[in-house]
């Protein structure tokens, strides 16, 4: 089966999201938190839990068996976890589409959520568990002894090199942080709603790992989200206006498990995945109405805009400046506020927001007449995923 046979064959038919918080924490187990989001997604779709016959849990956040046992899924025909870190939930759109189009499952559930604030912090997990990511043993043996233990430090190496080669400036990183914060003011569910930010605030925030300041870094939050995929044919009988998966792809940098020995230092998973997904969808970056870009750190937004083809490599800094990715700019990025200003929902939040926009349910932040949207994911040492979604009939 050619990949383009997946085009328009599957839809997102249900979304769910919990409230997000930092202090005092969710008060729930990570499984309970995720099941709350799943219940919301099932209700949204108008499906019964036992109709789910495919589950794709996020890496290290619960087994499909445990989800199935809690939900009463006695017919789990399809279960898979993609080891792509934060790129997994968007990569799962491709695999879920494969599963339903081939008849391997009828309804695939993709959950994700964590106590990212009140539970173990990412920096503790990446430093303490060599199995937490595919490159974990290499990080333990070749990065950690020299003082690099966590994502902002690893990725800072990429940002710094980009700034050297292309003249990308710290105010351009700041422009990304400001755009996300501005959009969060229109999202009552965003943690940073009511807390606007200026470039002065950004530049005054403490340095973490140069060039990353505190305000270049995503939030650490408790919360969960989930979505459900089925075939376009089945979607017609369900409650919501379907959101069609026009194209989706995922890929990895090379080598994927070592961040420093890449011949082309800026080539990430998205570099390869994006042209594949756009070709499958039959559209180009110029055709999209908005983009939800995985914004773990500010530079990763600039890098993904370049590698996804929204601008050329080296031009991302200029692209995001002067409101370029804000409301009214050349490309509206992260209408919900993203990981930087809404919450860190592992990339699921970007999918959920993309679906809301394409259903026309985004309230005051609704993109007028939104028809086509892009969602990306970024994970581990540069894994990338992308989906091009369309408003269904």
């Amino acid at each position, binding site marked *: 089966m050619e990949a383009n046979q997946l085009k328009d064959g599957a839809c997102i038919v249900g979304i769910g999201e919990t409230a997000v918080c930092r202090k005092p924490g969710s008060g729930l187990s990570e499984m309970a938190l995720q099941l709350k989001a799943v219940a919301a997604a099932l209700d949204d779709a108008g499906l019964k839990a036992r109709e789910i016959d495919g589950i794709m849990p996020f890496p290290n956040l619960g087994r499909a068996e445990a989800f199935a046992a809690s939900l009463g899924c006695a017919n789990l025909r399809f279960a898979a976890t993609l080891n792509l870190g934060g790129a997994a939930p968007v990569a799962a759109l491709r695999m879920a589409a494969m599963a339903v189009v081939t008849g391997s499952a009828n309804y695939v559930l993709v959950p994700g959520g964590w106590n990212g604030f009140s539970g173990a912090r990412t920096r503790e997990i990446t430093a303490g568990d060599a199995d937490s990511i595919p490159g974990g043993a290499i990080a333990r043996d070749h990065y950690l*002894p020299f*003082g690099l233990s966590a994502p902002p430090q690893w990725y800072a190496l990429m940002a710094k*090199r980009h700034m050297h080669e292309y003249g990308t400036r710290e105010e351009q990183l700041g422009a990304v942080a400001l755009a996300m914060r501005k959009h969060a003011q229109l999202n009552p569910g965003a943690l940073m709603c009511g807390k606007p930010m200026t470039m002065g605030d950004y530049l005054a925030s403490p340095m973490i*790992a140069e060039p990353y300041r505190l305000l270049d870094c995503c939030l650490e939050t408790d919360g969960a989200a989930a979505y459900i995929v089925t075939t376009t044919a089945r979607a017609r009988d369900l409650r919501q206006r379907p959101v069609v998966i026009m194209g989706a792809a995922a890929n990895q940098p090379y080598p994927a498990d070592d961040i420093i*020995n890449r011949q082309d230092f800026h080539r990430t998973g998205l570099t390869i995945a994006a042209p594949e997904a756009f070709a499958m969808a039959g559209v180009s970056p110029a055709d999209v109405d908005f983009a939800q870009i995985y914004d773990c750190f500010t530079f990763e937004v600039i890098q993904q805009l370049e590698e996804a083809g929204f601008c050329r490599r080296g031009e991302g800094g200029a692209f995001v400046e002067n409101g370029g990715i804000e409301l009214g700019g050349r490309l509206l990025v992260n209408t919900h506020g993203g990981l930087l200003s809404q919450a860190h929902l592992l990339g699921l939040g970007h999918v959920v927001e993309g679906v809301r926009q394409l259903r026309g349910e985004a309230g005051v932040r609704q993109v007028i007449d939104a028809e086509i949207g892009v969602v990306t994911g970024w994970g581990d040492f540069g894994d990338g995923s992308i989906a091009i979604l369309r408003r269904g009939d």
Partner: protein
Amino acid sequence: MGAANANLVRPLPLMDGLTKQFYEWCSRGELRFQRCSRCGAFRHVPRELCAECGSFDWEWARSSGKGTVFTYTVVARALHPAFANATPYAAVVVELEEGVRLLGNVVDCPPDQLRIGMPVHVDFEKQTEAVTLPVFRSR
């Protein structure tokens, strides 16, 4: 990150397999990388097989130890308790003359004076009886 944790020892590599061999050469004061016996390609981090030509045959070939700073970051806030007293410190990626890159610390240059492209050469710092880490000096 409490002060009680600040004296934790620096985390060291797990001395096992090819990684152990790499660091054992460091203990002898030699920086060596795997070089494919068939096509001559250098590689790092250690791997079983040459990704260029597919050969399983390789040797530990000595590096000149000379290279230039390819990229770096200055860590201002430690995210691991063992480095809490070390800030600010820089971690640098050095591209060696053999073409492979190695992450390390530059021990004789303040972080704010580091520059991409700066020439450096390798040196070694013994951590324990078993483990010596490569470090870099400006030249």
